[in-house]
């Protein structure tokens, strides 16, 4: 690449993305237990406090093969891809699968997963979908207690309040560091590219957080010392359904867009809020989760839109790209209402349908390029 040298620590994050499963495999080899996690309402802190490695399952950009025998072909390609991993043995190291109550297809895993990996227990944290409500506290806390009990049973280790508080402290630190890294994208040009930020956030979500925090501190130091990269072209916010592949962001930046912020469950959604260590730790987790109105499976919808608009302001975005993973119904339904909110503020938006296996990327490139050309000052 041309331009000033980039922080060397980024290579460590890139290495994680090349083979994310190497992280849980190493953990397992050292005698630890691993919990696959899907969606943001099964708190990783509880798993970590029980000595387990939480592994937010990433997919691979390949066509679905085996899973179609279990999930119908017109449902989420990401979830079907994960099921492929379960079926062909790539997830054999899992000791537990921790799910959240989110979209139809994720919930369906409760039926299908036990057929595909019968020896791995599955637990679904039945979180309320309606958040920002004090009224869900009793219910949600009971769900968190039940999750804790299940994790204790699987891990064989009790999760005491002190241990959980320590885990929250560690995770809060990760979230604070990530927020600081993302803050550097407010500058013009941003201190790190959209792809770099994505790789950092995604790898951090996979790594044990003590290790990740160490790397993030190094990254912050190196970013402060480095020359900012050259950045021209419109500043873009990317929002949408699950993105576990940097290819889309690479394409946006290749056709001249500068991705200055992202609202994704693999990135900023998991570090958007902190729990704090005041009072009962489960209560602290509830307070944090009750604010995660960041997924289209949650309510109120307006809260999600408000955050996107706030991010547009905070990161000085010129335009928004919303991508929908093919067949991701919750986000598909919300794209038009989001368009209306953005149009009211005169912020250009394009809505893209993206195949998890990168199918249709040729046409996607044309759409992205035309969109960047459209929002570029002529």
């Amino acid at each position, binding site marked *: *690449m*041309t*331009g000033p040298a*980039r922080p060397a620590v*980024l290579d460590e994050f*890139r290495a994680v*993305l*090349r*083979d*994310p499963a190497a992280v849980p495999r190493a953990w397992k080899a050292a005698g630890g237990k691993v919990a696959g996690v899907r969606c943001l309402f099964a708190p990783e802190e509880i798993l970590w406090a029980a000595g387990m490695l939480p592994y937010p399952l*990433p997919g*691979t*950009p390949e066509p679905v093969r085996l899973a179609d025998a279990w999930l119908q072909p017109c449902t989420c390609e990401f979830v079907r891809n994960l099921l492929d991993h379960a079926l062909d043995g790539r997830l054999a190291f899992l000791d537990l699968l921790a799910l959240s109550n989110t979209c139809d297809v994720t919930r369906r895993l409760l039926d299908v997963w036990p057929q595909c990996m019968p020896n791995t227990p599955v637990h679904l944290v039945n979180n309320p979908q309606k958040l920002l409500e004090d009224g869900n506290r009793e219910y949600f806390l009971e769900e968190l207690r039940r999750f804790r009990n299940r994790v204790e049973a699987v891990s064989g280790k009790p999760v005491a309040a002190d241990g959980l508080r320590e885990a929250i402290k560690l995770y809060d630190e990760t979230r604070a560091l990530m927020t600081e890294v993302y803050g550097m994208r407010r500058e013009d*040009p941003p201190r790190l*590219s959209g*792809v*770099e930020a*994505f*790789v950092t956030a995604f790898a951090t979500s996979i790594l044990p957080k003590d290790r990740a925090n160490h790397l993030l501190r190094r990254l912050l130091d190196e970013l402060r010392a480095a020359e900012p*990269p*050259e*950045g*021209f*072209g419109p500043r873009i916010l990317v929002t949408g359904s699950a993105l*576990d*592949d*940097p*290819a889309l*962001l*690479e394409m946006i*930046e*290749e056709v*001249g867009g*500068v991705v200055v912020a992202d609202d994704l469950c693999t990135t900023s959604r998991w570090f958007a809020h902190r729990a704090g260590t005041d009072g009962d730790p489960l209560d602290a987790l509830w307070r944090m989760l009750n604010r995660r109105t960041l997924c289209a499976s949650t309510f109120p919808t307006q809260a999600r839109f408000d955050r996107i608009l706030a991010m547009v302001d905070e990161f000085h975005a010129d335009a928004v790209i919303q991508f929908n993973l093919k067949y991701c119904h919750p986000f598909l339904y919300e794209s038009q209402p989001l368009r209306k909110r953005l149009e009211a503020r005169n912020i250009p938006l394009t809505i893209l*349908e993206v195949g998890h296996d990168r*199918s*249709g990327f*040729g*046409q996607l*490139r*044309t*759409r992205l*390029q*035309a969109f960047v*050309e*459209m929002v570029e000052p*002529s």
Partner: protein
Amino acid sequence: MITLGVDVGSLTGKAVVLEDGELLAWEVILTGPDSVETATAVAHAALAKAGLALGDMAAIVSTGYGRIVVPFAQRNVSEISCHAKGANRLVPGVRTILDMGGQDCKAIRCDATGKVTSFVMNDKCAAGAGRSMGIVADLLKVRLEDLGPLALEAPGDGVPVSSTCVVFARSEILSYQREGTAKSEILAGACTALASRVLGLVKRVGLEPEFAITGGIAKNVGVVRRLERALGVEARIPAEPQIVGALGAAIFARELAEKKAKRGDRGAPARRSSLGDGGSS
């Protein structure tokens, strides 16, 4: 100042040579398996007509799905921007453009300068695109260029043909044939289906006159008349609807050359590229 625009599409390659904004020469050829060869061949063919060579060009811009690989272009611009730009030249005052190519179809809105203000593209499925007409023509053993006039022979909208899926439409058409339905009725149905499919695109982008149709299907009166009826406006069809994209590219090339001249040929600042082999998992 002479510039060249090359449009490497899925079915055809197009090239346009412009001198000071005036159309000097153009060429359309069928796309071969190799986009680079197609681009090179069509560029040379157009240049030969004008008695020029690549070296005579002040700037060259490529567009179309093969735009990225054209080795002699200084810049590539998406076909959406190019169609708006080209249509703006050929149809003065145009604000909404429906471009129906072989593989995809897009509705574009633009301002008075031909800059895109909004656009919608069809789904990846071929049902909304020109290729579906090729399939229908093959099935009914009609020449593609006769398809439109034949479809107009049917008084109404023809028999119902699926607008959702080409595979589906194919089986429907086969059963109509077995039942002995008149060709013109089936063709009218196919044109109605295609028109209804792309109509949605125009509605989504918002129709504002002047309205122009570009791309190969603009030549199919069967589809065009149905679209006009449904939209309640007359469509302007450029004389050579297929070369609109290449013309737009040539205009972009001219703008590029002018900018370069202004900057004293220091070259455009490089965009930040993506990070090599970095992120892929």
